[in-house]
């Protein structure tokens, strides 16, 4: 692993760490969106009392940025969890099982894979009561085939390795051999990469829909997406109320993607 990759791993790791910390801490910070409004400090520039300034309703931007992580943090984890856990198991079955079990799993995966993600998420939002949890659940399910495909290739490649055969001959249960020796020891880098990707995707969809307004987080509840949406009514000489959350979105998504990729690459190098 080259020097740039290592620096990238540390930088993106720092971003991931900060976002995770904020996501964990945010729910415990008391915040009442309605009380935060104060029309005597509208659009203040960053200062000591308001580190990132205030928006057009006089609300502290730093505070809304921190509370905004609540909108995507747990949903993002949930989606990543669904996609990686279910995807890995489905991929393992598709790669190892035979007969009708395999046929059913492969068919279901192919069916899921044909659905266009963003369109399908919006479609579900129009049918059901839209919420970020619902969006994340659907996103997680839609990523199952992607995860399953990479895991399946790995399981198929390793399934005929001598040491897998040797473990079976020594009396280890094949389910254990696959779950531990293949999925856990060999596939964790793949799973880290995919989990980071799905998390980034949920952040992207949540902020995107919150920006558009109909299906995401609604004002006055904070989301990085609806914070950016203020750009529509802001005067041009006060860019920070939208610039700060926009930068946060870009940094977080690229940070997660880079971290997933670089950590996985590092893991794969260690495995080989």
């Amino acid at each position, binding site marked *: 692993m080259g020097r740039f990759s290592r620096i990238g791993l540390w930088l993106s790791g720092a971003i991931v760490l900060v976002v995770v910390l904020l996501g964990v801490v945010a729910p415990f910070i008391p915040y009442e969106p309605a009380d935060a409004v104060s029309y005597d400090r509208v659009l203040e520039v960053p200062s000591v009392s308001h580190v990132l300034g205030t928006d057009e309703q006089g609300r502290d931007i730093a505070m809304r940025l921190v509370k905004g992580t609540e909108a995507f943090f747990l949903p993002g984890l949930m989606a990543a969890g669904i996609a990686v856990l279910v995807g890995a198991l489905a991929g393992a079955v598709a790669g190892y099982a*035979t*007969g009708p079990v395999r046929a059913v799993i492969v068919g279901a995966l192919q069916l899921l894979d044909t659905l266009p993600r963003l369109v399908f998420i919006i479609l579900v939002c129009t049918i059901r009561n839209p919420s970020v949890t619902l969006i994340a659940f659907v996103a997680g399910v839609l990523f199952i085939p992607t995860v399953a495909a990479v895991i399946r290739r790995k399981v198929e490649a390793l399934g*005929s*390795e*001598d*040491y897998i*055969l*040797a*473990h*079976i*001959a*020594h*009396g*280890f249960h094949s389910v254990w051999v696959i779950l531990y*020796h293949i999925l856990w*020891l*060999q596939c964790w880098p793949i799973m880290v990469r995919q989990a980071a990707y799905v998390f980034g995707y949920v952040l992207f969809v949540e902020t995107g829909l919150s920006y558009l307004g109909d299906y995401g987080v609604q004002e006055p509840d904070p989301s990085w997406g609806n914070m950016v949406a203020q750009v529509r009514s802001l005067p041009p000489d006060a860019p920070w109320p939208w610039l700060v959350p926009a930068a946060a979105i870009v940094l977080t998504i690229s940070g997660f993607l880079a971290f997933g990729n670089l950590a996985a690459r590092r893991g794969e190098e260690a*495995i080989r």
Partner: protein
Amino acid sequence: MTATPEPMLQVSDLVIEFDTSAGRRRVVDGVSFSVQQGEVLGILGESGSGKTLSTLAVLGLVPGRPGVVGGRIDLVLDDRREALLADLPTVVSTPNRGPVRKDDRRWNRLVQRRWRPLWGRVMTAVFQNPRQSLDPLMTIGAQLDESVRLAEPTLGRLEVRGRSLDWLARVKLHEPARVHASYAHELSGGMCQRAMIAIALARQPRLLIADEPTTGLDTTVRQEIVELFQELLAAERRAMMYISHDIREVLFLAREIIVMRHGRIVEVVAAEDLKAGRGRRHPYTATLLAAADLPVGEVAS
């Protein structure tokens, strides 16, 4: 000669076929042999003679399709006879024309039912390519511990580790503690094979199947491994099938030897007779003996 006791393993008329791009090919054609309790059966033959597949069939681990399509495999454990391939007729069907068909699902179920309880506990294998037979991402110790724990689930952590270190010492690995903490790629091929033997024997199987365990090792190391097998078997009265293309190794270990070629057994002979050059030899066996600079004796025409 006294009456032979009932063998612990009896294979009769074993047939293995594979589908290839050039149609169905029969790779093992009516092979029969038996292994006596506590004795070593040597299987000699070149690559492609079907010797490895015959032993994988005993393990129920023949890869590819359709695999085992005929024969009987009987196992006698504590005077209880177990027919491993008893259900084969329900799995394999013979259509009026064309090759026999095999129901993969039923076969898998048969393997799960008959063989799964035997793997490790009753029979297990040491394969060629010791390094590839070990999980590259686990230390030798972790794998040996797994094996010990599977054999004796009631042991505590420290006892398991102690048992593992004992096994490493018994397969004559110096510095057992260092090997215990090493990965396969950090050890030599010979050391990996010793570790592999320890892992297999830690399961305490009645029958050990060694499939060309010395292939790819240095000549001196090969001799050591063969001697190790002899020592470990003599101490435990374990039965073994020793597969090799090296006639000297087989002569050293086995009491009875079968010689295979093109999927058939060409000769069954006692190691004593082979060593002494007694009796008439099949021409192929004679070639093998001559190639190893051993007395050939009389050759059957």
